[in-house]
């Protein structure tokens, strides 16, 4: 679905990583780890097309990134759900409208009942009309997850989705992601929380990737 081939990227001439080859196939589950500043967020931004790789190629659903026009990229993004580290809400819209935003922006019908069910699924049924800035970090992150899955995306990318959550909530949110994965969604979670990965591993056959020494490596049994 999303394929990276010998991709290299960095900022201001300094390369963060190079020779990254990665395939997010149907129903796959990946963790992406690495120290802060290693380039996890950067790799994710490449995966939803916000960045264009300095070298190498990226394919979305079989199509080269550079061959997709602006509309093509938009349509590809409608099939990729993203939980951004900083949530990226529209602060003037209610939480409910923010969750429905990918449908509205994608000019698709908004099934109101589905939006309400999803809000309940992440435990935010009481906050439908709240404005994002009035919510706690954890609530915002759960809403961000709801927004990421509202379109039933083929791929879900999550950047530190449990960064603001307590342990209990983190585990719950992760089980939501596992549930999605069982229904066929490819999942990639960037996190530096190794405990979370250890807890999840028995429930799902996840591959753990790590950015280290400017390369993407498959982490082994040391976890």
């Amino acid at each position, binding site marked *: 679905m999303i394929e990276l081939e010998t991709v290299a990227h960095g900022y201001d001439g300094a390369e963060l990583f190079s020779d990254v080859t990665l395939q997010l196939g149907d129903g796959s589950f990946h963790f992406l780890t690495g120290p802060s500043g290693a380039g996890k967020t950067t790799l994710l931004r490449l995966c939803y097309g916000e960045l264009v790789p300095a070298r190498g190629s990226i394919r979305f659903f079989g199509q080269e990134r550079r061959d997709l026009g*602006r509309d093509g990229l938009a349509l590809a993004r409608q099939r990729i759900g993203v939980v951004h580290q900083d949530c990226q809400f529209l602060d003037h*819209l209610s939480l409910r*409208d923010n969750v429905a935003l990918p449908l509205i922006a994608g*000019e698709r019908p*908004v*099934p109101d009942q589905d939006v309400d069910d999803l809000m309940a699924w992440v435990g935010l049924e009481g906050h439908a009309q709240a404005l994002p800035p009035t919510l706690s970090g954890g609530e915002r992150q759960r809403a961000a997850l709801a927004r990421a899955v509202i379109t039933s995306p083929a791929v879900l990318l999550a950047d530190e989705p449990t960064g603001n959550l307590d342990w209990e909530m983190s585990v719950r949110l992760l089980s939501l992601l596992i549930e999605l994965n069982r229904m066929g969604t490819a999942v990639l979670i960037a996190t530096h929380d190794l405990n979370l990965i250890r807890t999840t591993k028995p429930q799902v056959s996840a591959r753990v990737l790590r950015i280290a020494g400017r390369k993407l490596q498959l982490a082994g049994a040391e976890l």
Partner: protein
Amino acid sequence: MSARDPRRDPRALRVVPPAGQSAWLTLLIAGAMAFLCVFALALSVAADRLAARWGEALSRTATVRISAPATQMDEQTAIVLEVLRTTPGVASARVIPVEEQGALLEPWFGPDLPLDLLALPRLVEVTEAPEGFDSMGLRLRLAAEAPGAVLDDHTRWRRPLVEAAARLRALAALSMALIGGATAAMVTLAASASLAANAQVIGVLRLVGARDRFIARAFVRRFTLRALIGAAFGTAAGMGALLAMPDAGESGGLLSGLGFAGLEWLYPLAVPPLAAVVAWAATRAAAFRVLRGVT
């Protein structure tokens, strides 16, 4: 499950927060520009009408002025009339009676002018046939047969007058073009300000998969609507002002002609839709220019 038509979803319009300043600015600009445009339009119509009136009325008639000693006056008048009668292209010739001459002079000298004491030249009004006469030839024949007669065929002062009217009309058209250009520039500025203020919103919309035309539409719709409403008010005000112009009467010249007559009142109704089209194009161009810089 209640699914609405996504294109009619009111939420699609709310994705961009309601703007403060740029909204008022656009309304005001559109209103003021429409007001000015109505006057430029009225000026253009008036100049058009004046040019037509002068061109027609003045070219149809000419005057022969006879200045001669009182003893020769009747004789020379008869000769002039005979010459005119035999000139091809002259439809009719008529001696203007003394009382009529008095009426012509009254506005300047008052009603009590002792006409009989003045050595007034006699005036013969010549009405031209459609094919026109050869004024050069007529002038030569008059000089030979009635030395006191001078042909005044108005062309001397008719041409600059008609030219001035045409120039006025061109200036009015130029004014309208400038108003259109200025409106486009100012709407572009207001739209650009709004787009810049909403950079974060645009970025998020792109991230969640919005196509450029969806994002552009949210801005274009607003600015087009504002321009339409502002211009509607401006046009109404301009038309009202023209209606309320005091009637300067026949002697008002250009002033009495400034305004619309009959179906001409339909012309200014085109101003608001035109303003909307200008705003639509300007905002669309500005939006797509900004969007090119967003992945």
